[in-house]
C-alpha cells in the first residue's frame, strides 16, 4: 500500500515530476556519451542537490542512474562504442543491426527490454525490501561486520581484471577512511597535524575526483575521436525496415523475462553490478536461444537479453543500501552521501523513520522508467545525433571546471578542492594500472560502519574475534567471502582473457 501513497505524492507534485523528467534526459545523454558514466554525472551533480528537498534530490540522482544504464545502449548501437561497460554486451548484436539499417528497430527493442527489466527489478525491490529490512533489524554487530567483510571481499575481488589489485583498492579505501578523529576515543588518526583532516576526508570531493576528474585526465590522455553515428536514410524503405512487429518482438520476450530475473538476483549482491548481469544474461540467452547461430550477427534477442538484465540491476542494487547501509554499486555509494547530507540515517531503521520518503523514492523510480522509456522509444536517434554534435574538446574542460566548483560547494572549502584534485590523479593512476576505483570508493563508504560493528562486536565478546565464528550467520557471511575469492581466482586462472567488469 505504501507504494500507492508514494505514487500519489509524486504524481501530484509537478516540481518533482519535472526533476524526474530532467533526470531521465540527463541520464540518457550522459550514459550515451562514451567515457562519461552516470556515476560521474551523479558525483558532479550531488552538490546541486544540497539545495533541493530530500525526495527531489534523491529522485533526481536515482533516475539519472537508471536512465544512464539505458543510455549506454544508444552509443553501443548507434556509434559502435559502448557508452557504459555493461552496454558492450548490447553492442555485440546492436551494431550489426545498425549496419543492416535497422538501428531504430534495435533501439526500440533495447528500450522496451530496459523498461521491462527495470520495472521487474523495481517491483522486486518494492515488494522485498521492507521484508529484508525487518530481518536486518535483528542482526547484531558481529553479523553486520561479517556482512561488511563479505562485501569488501566480493566488491574487491569481483570487479576488475585482478583480484589482488581489486582487494588492494578496497583496503586502500578502508585505510583512507581512517583519517580523522577516532569515533570512540576522539584521538587523531592519520591527521599529520593538519586541522582540515580532523573531520576526515569528505566523500563528495573524493568521489568527484575519482569518477569525474580522473575521467578528464583519461580523455586527455586518449584524445578520443568524436563518435560517428550510423545514419539511416529518411525514406519509406528505411521506415518499413525499422518498424518493430509483434512477430519480431515475441521471441525476445522469454529472453527479457529470464534476463530480468538474472539482473535482479545479481543486482541484490553487493559489487556485482550491471556489467556482469549483462554478460551473464547474454551468455545464458545465447545458450538457450533457438537461433544461436544468429547471435553476434544482428539478432534482436541479443539486444533484448543484456539490456533487460542491465536495467533489472538498478532497483535491487538499492536493497543492501537501504536495508543494511551497504551500497552495492558506485551509484549507491554516492547516494549514501546524499542521504547523509539530508540527515537521513540509512539502514534497517530507515523503514521506520523515513518510510514515506523511501516509498516515494521508489515511486519516482517507476515514473522515471516510464519517462526514459518514452523519450528513448521516440527520441533515441535524436539523442544520438545530439551527442555527435557535442565537441569533446569543449565538454571535458567544462567538466573539469564543474568538478572544481562542485568540490568547493560541498563544504565551501578549498581544501576539498585539493582533495578532489589529489583523488582525481590517484583515480586516473588506478585506472591505468588496473586497480579498481569503484571498489576503492565503495570501501571508503563502508569502512566507518564496518569499524563500528567490529569494535562493538569485540566489546560484546568474551572470546575476542572468535565471536565471528561462533555466531552462525556471521560465520556464513565470512565463508561466502572466502568462497567468492576462491571462485574468482579459479575463474580468472581458467579464463585469463575474461572481459574486464569495470563498473559495479
Amino acid at each position: 500500500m505504501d507504494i500507492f501513497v508514494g505514487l500519489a505524492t509524486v504524481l501530484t507534485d509537478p516540481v518533482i515530476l519535472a526533476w524526474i523528467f530532467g533526470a531521465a534526459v540527463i541520464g540518457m545523454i550522459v550514459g550515451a556519451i562514451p567515457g562519461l558514466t552516470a556515476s560521474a554525472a551523479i558525483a558532479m551533480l550531488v552538490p546541486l542537490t544540497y539545495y533541493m528537498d530530500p525526495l527531489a534530490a534523491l529522485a533526481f540522482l536515482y533516475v539519472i542512474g537508471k536512465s544512464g544504464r539505458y543510455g549506454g545502449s544508444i552509443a553501443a548501437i548507434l556509434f559502435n562504442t559502448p557508452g557504459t561497460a555493461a552496454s558492450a554486451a548490447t553492442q555485440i548484436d546492436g551494431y550489426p543491426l545498425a549496419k543492416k539499417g535497422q538501428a531504430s528497430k534495435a533501439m526500440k527493442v533495447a528500450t522496451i527490454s530496459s523498461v521491462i527489466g527495470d520495472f521487474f527489478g523495481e517491483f522486486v525491490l518494492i515488494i522485498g525490501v521492507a521484508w529484508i529490512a525487518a530481518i536486518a533489524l535483528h542482526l547484531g554487530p558481529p553479523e553486520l561486520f561479517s556482512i561488511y567483510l563479505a562485501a569488501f571481499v566480493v566488491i574487491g575481488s569481483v570487479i576488475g581484471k585482478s583480484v589482488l589489485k581489486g582487494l588492494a583498492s578496497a583496503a586502500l579505501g578502508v585505510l583512507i577512511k581512517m583519517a580523522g578523529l577516532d569515533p570512540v576515543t576522539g584521538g587523531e588518526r592519520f591527521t599529520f597535524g593538519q586541522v582540515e583532516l580532523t573531520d576526515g576526508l569528505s566523500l563528495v570531493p573524493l568521489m568527484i575526483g575519482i569518477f569525474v576528474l580522473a575521467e578528464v585526465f583519461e580523455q586527455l590522455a586518449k584524445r578520443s575521436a568524436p563518435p560517428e553515428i550510423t545514419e539511416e536514410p529518411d525514406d519509406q524503405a528505411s521506415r518499413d525496415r525499422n518498424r518493430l512487429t509483434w512477430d519480431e518482438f515475441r521471441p525476445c520476450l522469454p529472453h527479457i523475462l529470464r534476463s530480468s530475473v538474472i539482473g535482479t538476483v545479481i543486482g541484490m549482491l553487493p559489487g556485482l553490478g550491471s556489467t556482469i548481469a549483462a554478460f551473464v544474461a547474454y551468455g545464458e540467452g545465447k545458450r538457450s536461444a533457438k537461433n544461436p547461430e544468429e547471435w553476434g550477427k544482428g539478432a534482436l534477442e541479443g539486444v533484448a537479453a543484456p539490456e533487460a538484465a542491465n536495467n533489472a540491476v538498478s532497483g535491487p542494487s538499492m536493497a543492501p543500501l537501504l536495508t543494511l547501509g551497504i551500497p552495492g554499486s558506485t551509484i549507491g555509494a554516492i547516494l549514501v552521501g546524499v542521504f547523509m547530507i539530508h540527515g537521513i540515517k540509512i539502514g534497517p531503521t530507515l523503514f521506520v523513520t523515513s518510510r514515506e520518503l523511501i516509498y516515494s523514492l521508489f515511486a519516482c523510480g517507476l515514473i522515471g522508467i516510464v519517462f526514459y522509456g518514452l523519450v528513448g522509444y521516440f527520441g533515441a536517434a535524436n539523442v544520438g545525433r545530439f551527442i555527435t554534435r557535442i565537441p569533446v574538446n569543449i565538454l571535458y574542460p567544462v567538466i573539469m571546471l564543474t568538478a572544481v566548483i562542485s568540490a568547493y560547494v560541498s563544504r565551501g572549502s578549498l581544501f576539498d578542492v585539493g582533495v578532489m584534485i589529489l583523488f582525481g590523479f590517484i583515480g586516473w593512476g588506478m585506472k591505468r594500472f588496473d586497480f579498481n576505483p569503484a571498489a576503492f570508493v565503495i570501501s571508503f563508504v563502508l569502512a566507518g560502519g564496518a569499524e563500528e560493528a567490529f569494535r562493538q562486536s569485540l566489546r560484546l565478546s568474551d572470546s575476542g574475534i572468535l565471536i565471528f565464528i561462533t555466531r552462525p550467520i556471521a560465520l556464513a557471511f565470512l565463508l561466502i567471502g572466502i568462497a567468492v575469492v576462491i571462485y574468482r581466482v579459479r575463474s580468472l586462472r581458467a579464463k585469463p582473457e575474461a572481459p574486464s567488469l569495470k563498473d559495479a
Partner: protein
Amino acid sequence: MTHTIKQFAPGAATLLIGLAAAVASFQIGLDYDGSWGPRIFPLMSAGVLILLGALMLRSATSEPGNTSPQESVPRDPFILLGLVILYLWLIGKVGYLISTAMVTPATLWLFGIRNPLALAFSALAAPAIFHLIFFELLGVFPPYGAWFDLLDVIGG
C-alpha cells in the same frame, strides 16, 4: 625479455603504502582501557596492503617479461594536473572570477582549441556562467582571493 615498470609499480606502491600506514598506525593512541581499539582497523588495512603488495610483486616476478615496446606515459594529463593545482592556488589568491578566466582558455588550449576568439570568449563566459549558477542562484559563499578579488570591485 625485461620486466617493465608497469609490472612492478603496482605491487611496490601497494607495499610501500602498506608499510607507511603500518608505521603511522602505531602512532595512534590506545583506547581508554589500554586496548588497541583505534589502531586495529588501520593496522588491519595496512597489513592487508602489505600482504597484497608482496603477492603482486611475487606474481610480477613470476610472469614473463614484456617483449612489446614500452607504453609511453602521456604528458598532457600531468600538464593538466599542474594547471588544476595552479587553479586552486590562484582561487585562494585572486578569487574565483579571475582565476577561472585565466585557467579556462589554458585548459581549452590543452584540449586542442586554437581559435583565439573562442578562447577569449571562454575567459569571459565561463567565470560569468559558473558564478551566476553557483554563487548567485544557489547562494553559495564564493571563495575570496587573499591578494585581490574582483568581487570587491564589481560588488558581487
